[in-house]
């Protein structure tokens, strides 16, 4: 199909300094867990976006010095010639697709814990990080400031050598240049602190020096947060940012405008729970109004009409995406080809970000199971090989996230016939009701994308309202059976804190309920006072609490954990979730584990009370969000009651299970599980994942000799 002419402007080239972007799609700097240490994963991950139509793709934050080491979190690094080599692969692969490459030069100041390098960062003032524990910076004197600026210049030159077209002097997210600009971080009284001119001095000088060094060859990008939401102390649009734009606009080739500091950067990488697409547009438009240079900005853009509006209304020049480019690296190409219903829209769950926040692991994506697997598993988001056993028919039982994904990918791999069946009258499994929880409407995109794809696949058929017994499955006529029957919330209070049930917990009673019962079956609890017991620690307990509070209940949220919904710290949802629960009057009780439920009361003890003193909460109802259990009855019956031999005699050659039916997990991991099985359905043993390519140093005779010689020389003090 052809592109809709109303989207033409998205495909107009634009000049940024000495470089030309071939269209308006820009992958904003964002982390992926690969850095410079996993150069192939890094390069292949970014290159897929270039192949998908992005005209410029950036690294994540890219450290300019061992003093700016974010370990345990993974940044890129441009410290030395070997880093140049490793990142140049990314540049080369982007250039193969006529895509510009950007390096986001980063120095963390007091936010860099330097756990690997054991260096100490320098910063404007000596106040410990509001993001990292126990991390202080050296308060930079004038020599330190000259030194820091040299670090930027040297790193910019290394970036140019590596092949980067765009070099950032990155301030947003409370990093060094913006620390100098912001009174919250900058308490100096010399010419680098105090007045706007003084606070702007470090950043201005650094941009000047980087421009001087590489500006003829590379575009200079400046990423600035235009509101930290810290009141007078934080960066402010009118007071700081617009004057700064006027001050350095001549030096800058492209502005990258966003919001937030680092401690609450969910105000920038906005969860869909709290913010819609284009949240930062007013701030971006304010910069655009006074700058003569192109302005780019994020907004979790997935809707081409909204992108066009942002450009036509003069609010942005370039559409920058982070999460939508991971969810669908082919977003630009699909818009260009008019295939809008093939776009795999980001759901804004931020599980990608959670991996960076956890520190270390590669990113994952709920919508795109191939994200991060481009190199190590060789998975392409849009290319599927015909399975070697494509002459088989497959029955997938259960049309939740794992089952839908598996059936879809099996269809794309050309299996003869795929029947996806579900006992319910539509696809989605628990994802039919999870998006009905407060704020989670966009999560329905997970189901919608797959429904549309499955509908298009001629070899995949969805069979609704079909509850199959094990005997039905055995006689169904499929050579391959995949059980994807999901999981359910425990009805007896079984939980990972006590590793036991809770006496009195029984969701068959009228005054107790699980999320499945409330959301899936419409069970209602009588009375005003409800206690939600949460030992899950992610979105379910708080979402149910919020929903019941919105219904007018007086809600107590109790958890044996030290925080409610601790995983939401990693998804950046925690601060606003806490605010919301607080504003709704939800009573938060942490470190308490119920010892028993009684009609009208929950009796609980503090988890660190050695004497087990009991406290009683008078309540009318209880919601059990204690843990999930696999719905494995069908799988067990097939394997244990009927048996694999009998199944074989019936023509069922293979039986697998995927997703929560194996073990409950994140939505992203359930989707991955279905995808993985379908990708490897023709491997020697599809029940076991194939090994993936690991980027690690491998010891061989040559390296052993050279490394031992090097070490001996260092120990002996004779190393050169």
């Amino acid at each position, binding site marked *: 199909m052809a592109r809709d002419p109303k989207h033409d402007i998205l495909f107009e080239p634009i000049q940024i300094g000495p470089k030309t972007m071939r269209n308006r799609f820009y992958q904003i700097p964002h982390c992926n867990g690969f850095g410079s240490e996993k150069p192939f994963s890094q390069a292949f991950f970014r290159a897929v976006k270039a192949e998908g139509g992005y005209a410029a793709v950036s690294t994540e934050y890219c450290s300019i010095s061992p003093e700016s080491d974010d370990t345990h979190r993974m940044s890129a690094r441009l410290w030395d010639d070997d880093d140049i080599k490793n990142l140049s692969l990314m540049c080369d692969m982007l250039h193969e697709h006529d895509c510009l490459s950007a390096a986001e030069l980063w120095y963390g100041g007091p936010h860099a814990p330097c756990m690997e390098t054991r260096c100490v960062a320098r910063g404007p003032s000596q106040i410990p990080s509001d993001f990292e524990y126990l991390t202080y910076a050296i308060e930079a004197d004038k020599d330190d400031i000259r030194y820091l600026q040299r670090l930027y210049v040297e790193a910019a030159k290394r970036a140019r050598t590596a092949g980067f077209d765009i070099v950032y002097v990155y301030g947003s997210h409370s990093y060094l240049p913006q620390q100098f600009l912001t009174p919250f971080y900058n308490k100096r009284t010399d010419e680098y602190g105090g007045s706007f001119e003084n606070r702007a001095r470090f950043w201005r000088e650094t941009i000047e020096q980087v421009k001087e060094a590489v500006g003829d060859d590379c575009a200079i990008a400046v990423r600035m947060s235009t509101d930290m939401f810290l009141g007078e102390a934080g960066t402010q649009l009118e007071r700081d940012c617009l004057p700064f734009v006027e001050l350095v606009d001549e030096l800058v080739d492209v502005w990258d405008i966003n919001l937030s500091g680092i401690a609450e950067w969910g105000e920038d990488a906005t969860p869909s729970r709290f913010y819609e697409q284009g949240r930062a547009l007013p701030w971006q438009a304010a910069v655009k109004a006074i700058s003569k240079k192109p302005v780019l900005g994020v907004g979790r853009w997935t809707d081409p009409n909204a992108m066009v509006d942002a450009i036509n209304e003069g609010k942005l020049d370039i559409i920058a995406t982070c999460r939508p480019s991971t969810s669908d690296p082919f977003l630009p190409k699909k818009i260009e080809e008019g295939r809008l219903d093939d776009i795999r829209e980001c759901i804004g769950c931020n599980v990608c970000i959670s991996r960076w926040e956890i520190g270390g692991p590669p990113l994952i994506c709920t919508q795109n199971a191939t994200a991060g697997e481009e190199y190590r598993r060789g998975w392409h988001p849009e290319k599927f090989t015909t399975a070697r056993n494509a002459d088989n028919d497959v029955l997938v039982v259960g049309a939740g996230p794992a089952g839908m994904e598996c059936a879809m990918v099996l269809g794309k791999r050309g299996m003869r016939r795929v*029947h996806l069946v579900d006992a319910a009258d539509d696809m989605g499994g628990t994802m039919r009701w999870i998006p009905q929880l407060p704020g989670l409407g966009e999560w329905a995109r997970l189901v919608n994308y797959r429904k549309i794809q499955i509908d298009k696949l001629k070899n995949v058929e969805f069979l609704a309202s079909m509850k199959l017994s094990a005997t039905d499955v055995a006689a169904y*006529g499929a050579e391959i059976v995949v059980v994807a029957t999901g999981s359910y919330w425990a009805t007896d209070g079984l939980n990972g804190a006590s590793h036991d049930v809770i006496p009195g917990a029984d969701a068959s009673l009228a005054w107790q309920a699980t999320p499945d019962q409330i959301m899936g079956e419409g069970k209602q609890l009588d009375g005003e006072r409800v206690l939600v017991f949460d030992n899950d620690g992610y979105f379910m307990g708080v979402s149910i609490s919020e929903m019941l509070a919105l219904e007018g209940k007086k809600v107590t949220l109790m958890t044996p954990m030290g925080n409610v919904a601790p995983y939401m710290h990693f998804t950046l949802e925690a601060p606003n979730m806490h605010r919301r629960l607080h504003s709704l009057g939800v009573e938060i009780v942490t470190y308490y584990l119920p010892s028993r439920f009684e009609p009208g009361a929950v009796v609980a003890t503090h988890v660190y009370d050695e004497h087990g003193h009991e406290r009683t909460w008078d309540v009318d109802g209880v919601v059990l969000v204690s843990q999930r259990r696999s719905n494995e009855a069908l799988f067990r019956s097939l394997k244990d009651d009927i048996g694999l031999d009998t199944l074989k005699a019936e*023509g069922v050659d293979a039986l697998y299970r995927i997703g929560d039916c194996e073990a409950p997990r994140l939505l992203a991991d359930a989707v991955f599980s279905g995808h993985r099985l379908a990708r490897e359905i023709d491997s020697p043993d599809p029940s076991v994942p194939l090994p993936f390519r690991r980027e690690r140093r491998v010891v061989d005779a040559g390296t052993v000799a050279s490394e031992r010689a090097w070490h001996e020389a260092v120990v002996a003090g004779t190393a050169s």
Partner: protein
Amino acid sequence: MKTVVCVKQVRTLGDEVQFTDGGMDVDPDYVDLALNEWDSYAMEEALRLREAHGGEVLVLTCGGKESEAALRRCLAMGADRAARVERAEDHDAIQVAHALAGVVREEGADLVLCGVQSSDSVQAATGTALAELLGLPRVAVVTRLEVGQGTARVHRELEGGLADVVDVDMPAVLTIQTGINKPRYANLRAIKQAEQVEIAVSQATDAPSASRVRRMFVPDRGESAEMLGTDPAEVAGRIAEIVKERTA
């Protein structure tokens, strides 16, 4: 109890459509084939009659070799036999009715079930024409069917939400409305078995056509669409206004 179910392999369209050179038909590249939705309900109704009263279900179509996919889908659902009247070239509903009538006369049937209409032509003509050619009573748009001794009590849908209940002597031709039942799925085993069934093929005799295609085109888009914005409260308010305006 012998029931003949007449079905059609319809052409379904995606988002985009192109016509063949000359504009007389839809370009086959833009077309998928499927069992007509109404016919799947007729097929299910026939299977339920067999389950209740015994007997046989014959599924019948008129068309080229490709239309056998619709027959095989019905065989997988549970039809006992399938027959196709070969008619590759263009044909209209009347010619199809002539072709089907020949087989029904030979076979004999207590009931002949058709869908109300096909989703591609939407003429609702074949069933009625077939009844005329066979000299049988016909009831159209059937939403409920109870078979007795030599007669059937039939609920037929009228406009304005009304239903008419009539007793009709059998044999008769009924055109079946969607929603009368819930068509069963065929499992993979049944689909595979249906692939092995031999389909009886006969040739259509010449019959006059009653209509011809002069041109196919996409209707002009009107200018009267009103977009209602994105704010749910605003949209709901406007809908309420429109309903009031138009029902005043």
